């Protein structure tokens, strides 16, 4: 299955630059947005493995965006790309948005590629874990049912 990366940066030049890089160097499907609200709508409708958000955007900052995204799709990996590296925002991003990586602008493409690849693996592992847990829960329910029927049959 093709992995999907969703990008949101209100600066079209940054978003376009990231998209061009990812399209040249990877086989990911890239969804690009300059509006956080439109990006959230897309996230609702599409399977996404990795989210990359700018910090300073009009209307909704990147941390708020990633926090909302976390509520919608908790297993998606979240990366903040920021030109404002300060401790206060880093802490807020980690606590509020459950951040996987805090990347500073100007970014390094090679580093970004590795972070995204690791992020995709992380999302896949979480998804698998989620599926296994669901399967276990399901099996547990079935086991309880069987046990109850056995009890009924023998007692």
């Amino acid at each position: 299955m093709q992995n999907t990366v969703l990008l949101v940066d209100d600066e079209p030049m940054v978003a376009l630059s990231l998209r061009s890089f990812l399209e040249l160097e990877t086989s990911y499907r890239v969804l690009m947005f300059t509006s956080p609200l439109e990006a959230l709508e897309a996230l609702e409708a599409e399977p996404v493995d990795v989210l990359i958000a700018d910090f300073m955007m009009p209307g909704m900052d990147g941390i708020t965006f990633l926090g909302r995204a976390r509520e919608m799709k908790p297993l998606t990996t979240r990366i903040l790309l920021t030109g404002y590296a300060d401790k206060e925002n880093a802490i807020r991003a980690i606590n509020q948005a459950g951040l996987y990586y805090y990347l500073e602008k100007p970014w390094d493409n090679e580093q970004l590629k590795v972070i995204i690849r690791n992020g995709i693996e992380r999302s896949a592992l979480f998804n698998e874990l989620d599926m296994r847990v669901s399967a276990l829960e399901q099996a547990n329910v079935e086991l309880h049912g069987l046990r109850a029927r056995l009890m009924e049959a023998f007692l």
Partner: protein
Amino acid sequence: MTGPAAPHERQMAEAVTQARLATLGMLVAGLAHEINTPLGTLNSNHDVLRRALLRLQSILADEVVSPDELDEVRRVIAAVDSIIRVNDIAVERMTALVRGLRNFGRIDRADIDVVDLHEGIDSTLAILAHELREIRVERRYGDVPRIECHPQQVNQVIMNLVLNARQAMPGGGTITISTWTGDDRVFVRVADTGVGIPADCIERIFEPGFTTRGGRVGMGLGLLICRQIIEHHAGAITVESAPGSGSAFTVSLPVHYAGATGH
């Protein structure tokens, strides 16, 4: 202008220089961010172009291009095409910012000059791009003649008025800048949709030290300096305000400079 500047003129120039430095100091973080964005983009794009070139070199190494490789070449060309267009935007953004800073400082022009007022407004807005990110800016420029003035000083007035308008709208809004001409004068109006000025304050806003923004350095002199500059140009500055719906400052300047010391 001939002869040495009058003491009043020198004081005025000094006050304007200080105000300009205070404004620029305040804007430095925003300006750095405004430069960092296109610079970061160019940095990344440069790397992408290098990768694209390597890709093409490797495809052409055996001097045979298979149909699969041809698709790859098309993909690389599409990426390069997109990158070049993005570079145009990034370079234009940085050029506009530097042009704005130069025009704002007018480091390369004489004290008094005949200038296009719209150029000064555009430069000021370019410098303030970062501060105005969440603000809609409407330019309603009329067909106005070039005016004879101290461009640095007039730019400082526009800067102060736009920054005041910005600060009156903490939750966002619209700044409308209109220009028109009449009676050998040019008018500039900076209107916002902000909090407005209470009726009991409106008489005092041009007084030294008047501020509603607490004790920030350099604050409280902005409008006083604006009025001094404009009166020095034999112009006028007026304000209308409706608390809750916004304020509008109108500046009028004569087309021909008739400064305080005569001309």
